[in-house]
């Protein structure tokens, strides 16, 4: 419970900082060329056993950037030497641009 509270407060603090404006179109290209798609899917939908869904409604920008630079799990690091802050901003803009899928109840195949 304590860990949950810490995480909640951290995310809440991060959420207060607005994300810098980025170029979503370029972000999509970078998401591919930098290999993000490999674990998270080409639409950032996530991959079973590889990486979580990143969009739509991504985690706060500061949290994403922090994890990208210094991941605490299995993800390989994307340091500033290979991915600039501007690139991160564009990638984040792409994650924000991912469209919400139709509700599950409206997808017959997921209700079989």
């Amino acid at each position: 419970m304590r860990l949950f509270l810490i995480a909640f407060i951290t995310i809440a603090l991060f959420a207060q900082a607005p994300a810098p404006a980025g170029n979503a179109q370029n972000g999509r290209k970078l998401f591919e060329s930098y290999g993000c798609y490999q674990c998270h899917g080409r639409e950032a939908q996530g991959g079973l056993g590889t990486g979580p869904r990143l969009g739509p409604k991504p985690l706060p920008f500061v949290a994403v950037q922090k994890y990208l630079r210094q991941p605490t799990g299995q993800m390989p690091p994307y340091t500033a030497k290979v991915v600039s802050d501007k690139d991160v901003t564009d990638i984040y803009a792409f994650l924000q641009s991912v469209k919400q899928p139709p509700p599950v109840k409206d997808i017959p195949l997921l209700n079989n």
Partner: protein
Amino acid sequence: MASSSKPSFGRQNVGRRNFLKGTATGAAALAAGVKPARAQQSEPARSATAAVATQEKDPSPSVEVLTADHPGSDFMVDVIKALGFDYIFANPGSSFRGLHESVVNYGGNKSPEFLTCCHEESSVAMAHGYAKIEGKPTCVLAHGTVGLQHASMAIYNAYVDRVPVFMIIGNTLDAATRRPGVEWAHSVQDAAILVRDFTKWDDAPVSLQHFAESAVRAYKMAMTPPTMPVLLVADGDLQESPMRERPHIPKITLASPPQGDSGAVAQAARMLVDAENPVIVADRCARTPQGLKALIELAETLGAPVINQYGRMNFPSAHRLNQTERSRALIANADVILGLEVWDFWGTINNLRDQVQRTTRPLTKPNTKMIAISATDLNTKSNYQDFQRFPDLDVSMAADSEATLPALTEACKRLLTGDRKRNFEDRASKLAEARQQARERLRTEASYAWDASPISTARMAMEIWAQIKDKDWSLVSNNAWPQRLWSFDKHYQYIGGAGGAGVGYGAPAALGAAVANKKYGRLSINIQNDGDLMYAPGVLWTSAHHSIPLLSVMHNNRAYHQEVMHLQRMANRHQRGITTAEIGTTIKNPNIDYAAMARSMGVHGEGPITDPKDLAPALKRALEVVARGEPALVDVVTQPR
């Protein structure tokens, strides 16, 4: 061996090409056959070899015998039939030409039927998949040299996966009888040494009686848990030399599987009944209908969650105690963990970070008790390191889990009190509720990228499910979304993975499993990785040639995707070239047209499909073909995972 008062019907010291059967020569040869080798050396003038050699220099057409009515290979077929093999999977090879001919003509090419494979690795992987459906091995023939070399990776997969495969390999040991040239290159002193590190047992019989006994012994050993591949060498001379009398085939009585010691079972039962948060982890455990039933009964007796690690079917996916999706949380909160044939127990209860510093941390609470039941403890070899890191265990039973489950369940039941029963039922109800929530989350996750192109793997899985869910189906491949979203409840609906993670297993194993499913009229479904198919595309031809009903749906992500991710990890770690991970790891430029490839080998082909809306009609067309007893392939261009 036959007694000394009778002629020897084992290995003749007269080579197959040199067997000249004049009355006198035949008698000499027969007599020499029972003479000790040392005696032959001391009396060279009287040896059959010498007699034959004399005639070989000046063969007389009037006495040269060019035919043999009862070759040793006929008896080998008798042995193979006695072992109950339905099929022989093989690529043809001269070192077992005698046996091949006997299978086809003497044996009538029925039980076993010879199925033509295009690569020995495919032959063995087919046998691997077959055994996982049928619960028993089938026979593979191969050259003792080049064939076995091809087959070795697939044998390793079966070994790591603890699956029985029965190999017979051809070889010509006697250098004096080999044909010049290729037969020398196809001969070897100790053929089995190549795979001895990852087979359970092998032998190189020198007589037909020896062959019979070793074949039965090999079968019995392959089938005794831990089940594994075994190998027999069929010597070329033994195959092709005439048989004079039929040797005895021993009675085939399989060993009962090893069951856990009663004291250890009682101790484990006490720990499980006393636990507040027990967790059952099943990996290569329940492989039969009885096994599934036994695991269900244990879980329901305890009201305990089951985490399926998918080495076998193990547990119904829709059961309220199937808590696989909550694995991490359950392991973290467990006070007792029961591992059933868990391949990597240490990795189940610990985390290792694949960073520059490979740090580890436990996933469990400090005092969590561990119980392991595994037949692997009964037979572990040293060279290949598939045995994983050594876990801290509190109870360890070297026994077959499936065979031990009934006794463990009964021991638990004997300890139950009314209070515990009510407690367990409450626990099961809460688990069922949590499971339902986890399932809802999964369905939501599946909806993301639903209409994407390339097609999401979740969408592909559910498009297939919509077409097959009302049929008697069997998933003969190892895929993530079906495990989570389809409803599995029969032992043949899931066969696990490759074992050794050797690529090139998927397509042939699926075909072998489909061969096994054919006689039951089941619909075999294979979600086929593109990189894997390119190791062994010849299986498409085999499936068409032998009319094996199998629907293959390509998970075509145009890459060896696991390796793409590994290369990316290295580039990121080295802070350079993070855009180059696709060099050497992808399968594009040109893109492979798998549907065209399938059609070229007589398999119905659909695709490539890039729009998810086109998937259902293509699947329907393909399934119509499969319903007619033929294979079909649908090429789907997909998301990476």
